[in-house]
């Protein structure tokens, strides 16, 4: 009986395990191997030991890219979570078809492909014709070519990213809020708790697991930032938006250095694993307190 069950289990999980081994584990092992060679973009290379890793350590542009990646994470992860929660609290107060429409409006950007998002914002922020330029001019006195400016570029990429992806976070928070029973609020209201106290002592603790999830998903996602940077700034001006994946792209596709690109990829992979595990543990323990 036991054996038969095992067999059934194997039969059902088999296809997944095979696919997982072939399209994830095997390439990962190959990637590690590649990082010890001087391989070009396509084709094998010679074994060169730890040379790529030594180079990685001494590579100024790689450190700059790492720094920029963290800067981008800082600009997106927590703000997008807070905005998502705030919008969810507001949308949650609406009801019926009106709520559906508002929800759809917020979710709409998320279903757009990145190329469309970039085109929209390139026009909105165009130096000569952009409809957002009067707002910028109001503060700076003159139109700013935001994607060509060392200080504006990264915050604008972050802003566009939040605009684009926030709908998904909003949806997760809405689902979380709907799971909180109305009874808690009723009981708290009877005891004389105001709206703010209700939020701090009921909503926040009960929504925490969702918040932790959103933060973790966002962290992993934003560490891998590439599309927006590639389409908007290609890492410029003066390295201001060079992020790790853009740097991997440069090494692999522009400089034809597959081996070194694999090394940088591996560094990013390690970084994501460590940070996400760490963050999730910290958040979970806080939630259990």
């Amino acid at each position, binding site marked *: 009986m036991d054996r038969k069950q095992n067999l059934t289990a194997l039969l059902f999980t088999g296809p997944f395990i095979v696919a997982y081994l072939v399209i994830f584990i095997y390439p990962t092992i190959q990637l590690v191997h590649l990082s010890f060679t001087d391989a*070009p*973009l*396509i*084709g094998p290379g010679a074994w060169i030991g730890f040379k790529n890793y030594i180079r990685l350590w001494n590579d100024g*542009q790689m450190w700059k890219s790492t720094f920029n990646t963290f800067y981008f994470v800082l600009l997106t992860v927590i703000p997008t979570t807070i905005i998502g929660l705030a919008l969810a609290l507001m949308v949650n107060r609406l009801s019926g078809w009106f709520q559906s429409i508002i929800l759809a409006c917020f979710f709409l950007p998320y279903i757009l492909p990145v190329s469309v998002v970039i085109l929209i914002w390139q026009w909105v922020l165009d*130096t*000569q014709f952009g409809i957002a330029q009067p707002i910028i001019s109001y503060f700076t006195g003159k139109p700013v*070519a935001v994607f*060509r*400016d*060392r200080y504006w570029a990264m915050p604008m990429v972050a802003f566009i990213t939040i605009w684009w992806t926030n709908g998904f976070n909003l949806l997760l928070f809405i689902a979380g809020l709907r799971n909180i029973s109305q009874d808690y609020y009723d009981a708290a209201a009877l005891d004389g708790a105001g709206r703010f106290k209700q939020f701090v002592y009921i909503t926040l603790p009960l929504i925490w697991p969702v918040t932790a999830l959103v933060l973790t998903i966002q962290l992993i996602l934003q560490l891998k930032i590439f599309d927006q940077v590639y389409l908007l700034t*290609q*890492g*410029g*001006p*003066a*390295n201001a938006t060079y992020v790790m994946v853009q740097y991997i792209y*440069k090494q692999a*596709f*522009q*400089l*034809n250095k597959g081996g070194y690109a694999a090394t940088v990829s591996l560094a990013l992979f390690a970084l994501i694993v460590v940070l996400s595990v760490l963050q999730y543990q910290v958040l979970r323990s806080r939630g259990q307190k």
Partner: protein
Amino acid sequence: MRGLMTKALATAALLALTMGAQAKETVVWWDFLGGGDGVRMKALLEKFNKENPDIEIQATTLEWGVPFYTKVQTSAAVGEGPDIMTYHLSRLPLGVSTGTLREITPDELKAAGIDAKNFTPANWEAAQVDGKQYAVPFDIHSVVLYYNKDLLKKSGLLGDDGLPKGLDGVENFNAALKKLKDDGVEVPLSTHTAAGDSQWRIFYSLLGQQDVPFLKDGKVLDGGDEQKAVDTLKEMASWVADGYTPANVEYPASIALFTSGKAAMHINGVWEVPTFTDLAKDGKLGFEWGAVRIPVLYNHPATWADSHSFAIPNNKGKEISPEKLKAVLTVIDWMNKNSLFWATAGHLPAYLPARDSEEFKTMQPNATYAVLADTAVFDPSSTIAGVASPIYEGMQNYFVPAVNGQLDPEEAVKSLKDELQGLIE
């Protein structure tokens, strides 16, 4: 019954068509000619297909620059490249180093009747790496100074011969820009200040005018050359800082500034000649225009130049068949023999019989700026140079911010130098 008959006839006709097509050799062609010259190339391709019933070119135009060359490199590496492609000679050493190009042997060239004698030696040798031929030159192209005759005339900068005057020398050039501005010209000089490739062409021309080598004996801007590069970059940045050239202008916008009559002068490639020719012909330009060699700001004339050429990708695991190769070389030979028409796209034909012909010598505005070929400076022959190369990327990353006042020119030159030097070692 009648319907059946029609169907049978249609099937027969279709069969006949496909059988006809089978006898043809198809040549898959990729190019990056999306500018004003792309229209001319389409006409040439149509003409070829009409005149050569046994060869059919299937042409695709891809996006110029990094997208094109990335696609070519990766597709050739897995045997999925085209049969023939356009290629910048500036990039040839880089392309050979990545194994993207197939050698064309002397015997193959001879069999196709392609003779080195019909090209200038420098141009022909630029298509070689270590003495092996990897491409056949098609044209020489450069940047020129387009000018609005009406605006220059108003500011007294136009000679009786219809050519600009008083632009040579840095002081004179800047004084001319100031005069134009004072006379109410909105944009004295329009360049694509947002584009690294365009800034490279200007920068490299100005370095050439001072005999400063960008790369010499494996050293980037060695010794005192670094300071000269900084000074040159400062000069370019001053045009933006002084309000003569608008900051952060993208490629199409810089052309629009000129065609709309707002800009008195415009530095751009010869490939935009057809744009202005066609607009003027349709009466949509609204002013008289001309094109001349870039003014001599420093010691002597020199202009950046590059060459479009034809190359055969080294399709891994899918060696080109002798029949297909013959067809490809026929295409290359035919294109060069018909390159007088290509000259209407602004370029100078690489094929000397075309360039030396009477028709070319009277073709305007090409004949006016054709002298630039004598003092042309080509990109350094190196794996860091050429379109979509580390130099081009560095231009975008460091020089564009410097030109637009975002980055100190000293820092820009130093960062570029360090990055490129690191790639050579």
